[in-house]
């Protein structure tokens, strides 16, 4: 099953709000909305793997880190997101990271 990590993104949140509106107006059932979100998870994960080619570098000073349930959470201060085309600076960024498909835990426990 794909990560539900991307539901709390601009795209994912917009989808969830739209689905909630449809449920409110009784046009779809909640079960259907749930299935839509599952399909969204699969779609977004595969799209990021298959269709995204560009690369962004970022650096900042680490404020805190956490690793629990195989999920890394970082808080960086004064981070710079650098792409070839542009540079974005932010004071604080929260990074939530899960294992990738090919970089997942391959070691046998």
């Amino acid at each position, binding site marked *: 099953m794909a990560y539900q990590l991307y539901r709390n993104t601009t795209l994912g949140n917009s989808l969830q709000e739209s689905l909630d509106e449809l449920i409110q107006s009784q046009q779809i059932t909640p079960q259907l909305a749930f299935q839509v979100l599952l399909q969204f998870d699969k779609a977004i994960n595969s799209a990021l793997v298959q269709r995204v080619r560009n690369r962004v570098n970022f650096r900042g000073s680490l404020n805190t880190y*956490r690793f629990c349930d195989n999920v890394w959470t970082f808080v960086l201060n004064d981070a710079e997101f650098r792409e070839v085309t542009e540079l974005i600076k932010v004071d604080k960024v929260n990074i939530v990271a899960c294992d990738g498909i090919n970089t997942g835990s391959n070691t046998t426990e």
Partner: protein
Amino acid sequence: MACGPGAEFCFPSPALQSVCAVCSSVGWAEAEARDPRGPCPAPPRPHPRLGAPTPPPRLAACARRADKWLVRHVRSVGLRGSSTCLGASPFSAFLTVRAPPMEEEQTYLELYLDQCVAQDDLAPSRSLLLSPVVPDDAYMSNPSHPETVFNSHLEEVKETSGHFSSVDLSFLPDELTQENKDQSIIRSKHEIEENYKTQSQQSRLSLSREQDIGLGLISNSSLSNSHSHLYPGDADSVQPSLEKPNSMPLVSITPMTPMTPVSECSGIVPQLQNIVSTVNLACKLDLKKIALHAKNAEYNPKRFAAVIMRIREPRTTALIFSSGKMVCTGAKSEEQSRLAARKYARVVQKLGFPARFLDFKIQNMVGSCDVRFAIRLEGLVLTHQQFSSYEPELFPGLIYRMVKPRIVLLIFVSGKVVLTGAKERSEIYEAFENIYPILKGFKKA
């Protein structure tokens, strides 16, 4: 704050001399610059060794840095009965540290010296002091170090005044320069002989805890008296300066077991690099909750059944187990380790667990230093094969397992030495003092 007022012995320690030679900080340089004779200037005459009536001002800068060290050292080690390098070496060893990075370093010195005092109290070996001073001959023929020279004097003093306490004054600095050493040796020998019968029964050396002597001075009447016997001219000037406002009650001073001649005292202090300690928080912990709510925590139960938490000050890492036991690593001193462990316990407590702080214990201490010369490891393993293991194809360092104290040393060709396995700081220092003469014997070319 060089020699405090009223301190009767205001002479620089031999360690200060070596420190000055080694140290490159500005403060030291100042003192160096001021004294044409060498790094650590001798106090002004009449007698450089004993009881210059006033503190040598030139030593102020040096002393300022080292005075705390010296105060502690003097308080306990100074007049201990160690008649050898072992007594002097901790002192000189401590003083050769470039500059105590933290205040707590000085208390460590004090603690170490306290332990030495305790050891000495337990095992007085006055007879050692009163026995024919074999090292004297060695000293006579080897007046290359001020401490050597002075220790020889002290040996003699001990002999004569041995009845009052096996006081090892070997730590006391001797600022004599080369040309003066011989004269002093001869002079002191004569004086000691003639004053032997006239020695008073003063026995206890009271060491002032807060002596602001900075130069390894001892504030104690008996010592001053003994010295005054030797150097009558200085007695009057010295005597009045005995009373110290903060003098401690008389300390029973017994000699440490002399093991190595003073001439082999190293001027090097191993620096602690890592302390591992454990503590019991005495309550079951929910590691997942800790990992989710605490900052800077990792928890991967598939890999390791503990939360790995880090704090920045003191920079340490803790392994926190669900049983409530915790391991704290990475601190550079005992006090830092304890403080860090307390901080982790507080984090756990703030998450809602009834954490306590039971049975804090330091499990391992690691120190390292540099002897500053290349070492012939092959030679060392040949002669010390029952203690050494050297497999250059496996590991480039020689693994020396010292029996007493039970410390493992990693000795490298470059002259770097790593000491580990200690439960106490003093074990590291003692092990290094034990190995240093051996290493000197295997110096390359």
